[in-house]
């Protein structure tokens, strides 16, 4: 078995336990060492900070459109230099193999959470980027988690309507739209993305879903910058 990232051989240290797990280790220990697991930090989003709540989260807390959402974000790794090179390979080169190789790590991370009855909402891409890359990285992560996926949101680059309003921020708010009307009464949602940066994407989609009566909304991303 060769490491998907560096192509070195993987030496399995615990052969006995490896025999009983269905998810094979696809990334070698050396490559995993370059990544740093999210621990502590902001209680809402995991950002590295000494405060209880980080500035990003305070911003959403103080914004009247979003302050009722209370989205909690869970991320697996910090977005360090090494993570950046991986994301570049996944998104810029279109190498889905690297993303799929994180199956074992993602499953292990989510195991303690009670997510059985939740619905996954992967962040959509522009259609053009999807064709160029060959896949939507958020959707791939959602498929790894293997829960029902809601595919009713699209990303639009139609800004005509917002230009009329002349409010710059509205342009962004209008980016994600519903394909059709939706009722999510009593449903819990996990928004899935590759990177959580300031939380803008997650909050915009959360707003959209909360307007459809969704109950609890949280998010999971592979990286937290």
């Amino acid at each position, binding site marked *: 078995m*060769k490491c998907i990232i560096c192509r070195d051989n993987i030496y399995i240290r615990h052969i006995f336990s490896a025999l009983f797990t269905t998810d094979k280790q696809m990334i070698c220990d050396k490559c995993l060492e370059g990544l740093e697991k999210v621990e502590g930090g902001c209680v809402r989003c995991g950002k590295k900070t000494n405060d209880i709540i980080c500035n990003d989260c305070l911003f959403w807390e103080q914004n009247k459109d979003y302050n009722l959402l209370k989205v909690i974000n869970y991320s697996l790794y910090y977005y360090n230099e090494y993570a950046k090179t991986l994301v570049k*390979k996944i998104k810029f*080169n*279109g*190498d*889905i*193999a690297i993303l799929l190789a994180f199956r074992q790590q993602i499953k292990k991370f989510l195991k303690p959470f009670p997510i059985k009855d939740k619905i996954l909402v992967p962040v959509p891409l522009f259609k053009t980027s999807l*064709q*160029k*890359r*060959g*896949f*939507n990285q958020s959707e791939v992560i959602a498929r790894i988690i293997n829960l029902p996926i809601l595919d009713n949101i699209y990303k639009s680059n139609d800004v005509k309507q917002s230009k009329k309003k002349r409010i710059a921020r509205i342009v962004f708010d209008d980016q994600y739209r519903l394909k059709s009307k939706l009722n999510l009464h009593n449903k819990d949602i996990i928004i899935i993305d590759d990177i959580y940066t300031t939380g803008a994407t997650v909050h915009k989609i959360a707003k959209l879903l909360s307007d459809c009566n969704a109950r609890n909304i949280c998010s999971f991303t592979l990286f937290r910058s």
Partner: protein
Amino acid sequence: MVNNMLVEYTKSTENIVKAVEIVKNKYYCVRCGNNDQSEFFIDDFGIYCRKCLNFGKSSTYQKIWRKEIKIIFNESYCLKKVVNLSNIQKIASNKCLESFKNKRDMLLYAVCGAGKTEVVYEVILRALNLGNIVCFATPRKDVVLELVPRFKRDFFQVSIVALYGGSPDKGKVGNLYVTTTHQLINYYQFFDLVIIDEVDAFPYYNNKMLAGFIKKAKKEQAPIIYLTATPPKYYTNLIRRKKIDHFIIPNRFHNHPLPIPKIVLTYSTAKKILKGNCPKKILLWLLKKQQLSKRVFIFVPKIEIGIALEKILTKYIKCRFVYAEMKERTQIINMFRNNKIQYIITTTILERGVTVPNVDVCIINCDDQIFDERAIVQIVGRAGRHPKYPFSDVVLFCDYFTLEIKNAVKQIKKMNKIAKGNKNEMYNM
């Protein structure tokens, strides 16, 4: 749709082909030649090749546009001024012409500093004047950046295209292409003569993919001239079986032998440096160079050691550390070349093709496995390259002798022997 296709320039007929094809039930990447099935992967639209991902995604749902390029032909290319060749260089130059005429591949073997580049000037001009397109491929971007101004200075009326990752010349049309081997992926049956510099250097050696790029980029009948200072076994075998022509330039152009490296033992070097201490022997040697105001190349095996060493040495001397991925890399190398920095610390990645006159060289932690025989010989070749300053001091600092160090010294001595005229030595390498 054309906008999304991968583009390859060609001089044969224009067409559009699939980027990944199925041949005899196996996937085959038309772009990079990969047929290792474990290097193919499935995404939402089809199968893609992981081997050449850095050059754009090649997949079953992707197409390659082989774009025909017409090149303006000028018919009177020449040198701006006469380049003085030694007798042996002249013979070598004629040998290149002969092999080119017979459409045969050739290996030109010359020790470091023997003036290989000048030797191929004639054959480049001959090809250009026939209306041919010539490619000069080298392993590293630095060498491209160094050769292009030199070619621009020496060649008259030739339009020269420099290609490397991030080059502004991408897509430009010319007669002489100076390129990193990786960039050849964008060409299909395009070149009439290919010259490959430092064929022993890391990317070609044992790298099937790059060999495939070269084969794809040149016309089928186009000959290749390989330049090397240390011929790999593969080529000496080809020579023995008379599959390719060869020629040996025994001396360096200023007739001085390669410096024999001194070996100095230091103790737990890497550990000390990482802790912030430099072994005394190394420090004293470096400080002596400062008094002599000689420039020094310091080679280290790992980036961490380079960074730590830079921190230690800046207390005493002006030095900079450069490595491959660094942004200001070219800038720092230029400062070193222009004598603005006296010391440069580098990983082996920089080792080949960069010429600076009057330098002393040392390798720190030479027992590291990264310094194999080939690498050490190449590094020693950096020293004493200028006719005015042929003597230089080369020191290998190591914790213990390795077989590679021993072999390298042996080989350097052998090369110097060849330089004196004993050609039979080559086959015993």
